[in-house]
């Protein structure tokens, strides 16, 4: 501020009279020429906001693996036996399930054998393995899971790793990159589950992690919408996810905007993970509310 120290504006805050000055200005309000609005919005459009840079899928996956490792390392015996809602499994059982899913993912990448069971049924896959792990020690299960995850990380760091290769998970036609993001999303969800079950403090995802996960989810919404309601037609929609790691996404093509939805990025990710119902999501919607409801329902398609 270059207002001189000996003038009213320099002292207004100190004196607590800024609201009085703003009120005095009200009578002077004059509509600016319409061209100013246009110029302002053009200048704004020319200076896009610098947001958290998305991570590479392999980096996101590794980061979430590290988060879960650090959490498991501090669990005590009671923690391992607490129920990990919304599942009937204990925390131990949930980590055994993750072990199965890491092995399943590794098998899709050509690493190791496919676990026994219906590969389209995420929760039923590898039941025998889960039962065997639960019969053993939690620390051994944690170690087995960590090794399985590390094999995927090592593969993603290896020469010849192809992030664009197909990786069809549970019937979803993912690429390897998309598959790793989906896996990271699951790890983020279960870290939250375990923290909740054990009353450990939350391990918040970084803004770059949230940005990567939310971008992945929002960009898939137009493709997922028909699976929710074939009668719904995708139309230009703005999705605004607020908070660190959020962003502004225009999906559904160009043209006049049919809908706008604003929500907190972490809460949105919880909807995607089926930890919050779409109807429970605190949000602002403008325009086509039915379309927005359909998109929020569609956002949960990958969660199991």
């Amino acid at each position: 501020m270059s207002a001189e120290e000996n003038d009213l504006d320099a002292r207004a805050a100190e004196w607590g009279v800024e609201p009085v000055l703003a009120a005095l200005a009200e009578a002077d309000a004059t509509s600016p020429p319409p061209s100013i609005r246009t110029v302002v919005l053009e200048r704004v459009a020319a200076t896009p906001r610098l947001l958290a840079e998305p991570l590479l899928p392999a980096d996101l996956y590794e980061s979430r693996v590290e988060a879960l490792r650090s959490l498991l390392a501090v669990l005590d015996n009671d923690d391992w036996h607490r129920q990990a809602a919304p599942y009937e499994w204990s925390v131990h059982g949930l980590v055994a399930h993750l072990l199965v899913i890491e092995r399943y993912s590794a098998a899709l990448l050509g690493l190791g054998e496919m676990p026994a069971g219906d590969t389209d049924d995420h929760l039923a896959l590898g039941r025998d393995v889960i039962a065997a792990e639960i019969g053993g020690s939690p620390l051994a299960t944690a170690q087995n899971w960590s090794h399985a995850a590390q094999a995927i990380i090592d593969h993603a760091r290896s020469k010849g790793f192809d992030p664009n290769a197909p990786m069809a998970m549970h019937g979803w036609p993912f690429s390897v990159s998309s598959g790793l993001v989906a896996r990271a999303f699951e790890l983020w969800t279960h870290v939250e589950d375990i923290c909740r079950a054990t009353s450990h403090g939350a391990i918040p995802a970084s803004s770059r992690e949230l940005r990567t996960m939310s971008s992945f989810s929002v960009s898939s919404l137009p493709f997922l919408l028909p699976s929710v309601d074939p009668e719904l037609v995708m139309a230009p929609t703005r999705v605004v996810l607020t908070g660190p790691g959020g962003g502004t996404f225009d999906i559904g093509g160009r043209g006049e905007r049919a809908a706008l939805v604003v929500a907190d990025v972490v809460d949105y990710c919880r909807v995607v993970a089926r930890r919050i119902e779409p109807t429970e999501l605190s949000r602002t919607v403008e325009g086509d509310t039915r379309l927005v409801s359909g998109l929020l329902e569609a956002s949960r398609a990958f969660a199991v």
Partner: protein
Amino acid sequence: MCSRTRGRALDFAAVFETTVDWEQQLVARIEVGDDAALATIYDQYGALVHGIASRLVGTDAAADICQEVFVALWNQPDRWDPGRGSLRTFLAMIARRRAIDHLRSSGRRTANEQRAHRAAPAIVPNVDEAALALVAGDGIRVALAALPGPQRRAIELAYFKGLTFRQVAEATGSTEGTAKSRIRLGLRRLGEQLSITDSVAWQ
């Protein structure tokens, strides 16, 4: 402006509370790059910002200041601290500071004579907020007129003309300390009369 709300009583506290939430959500949207949120804020406060600048520097320069204020909000939304006051107040103060800078750097007198007549926008996104502001504005004008003459004159020179305390003192034939004291006392009295000081209904 706000004719829809003139015929009914405003619940000041409720409107203020919802306005704060509304402003915070819009700024949160700006922080993640939503230009539609900035357009909404412009539609709500553009006339205020333009009016402040027009009074001090005339309509031509006011157009530039108006642009600068909103582009600055886009570039640095975190400069607004909701704990210190409303977005309306924040933008008003930024507009004044920029206008006074312009005035002093150009060496010009205030441009009252160049001002357009009041022509506030017919449509604003948040009608209740605008109505509250209008009521506060009307009330404070009445309160200003009721101030003791020396206080009112000192405020008019400092606020509407953008004069420094020293210039106010010269214009009123008083000392700088007296001019400053009159302005401060007068403004505090306005704030008390309208219950719009620090933490009351209108921030």
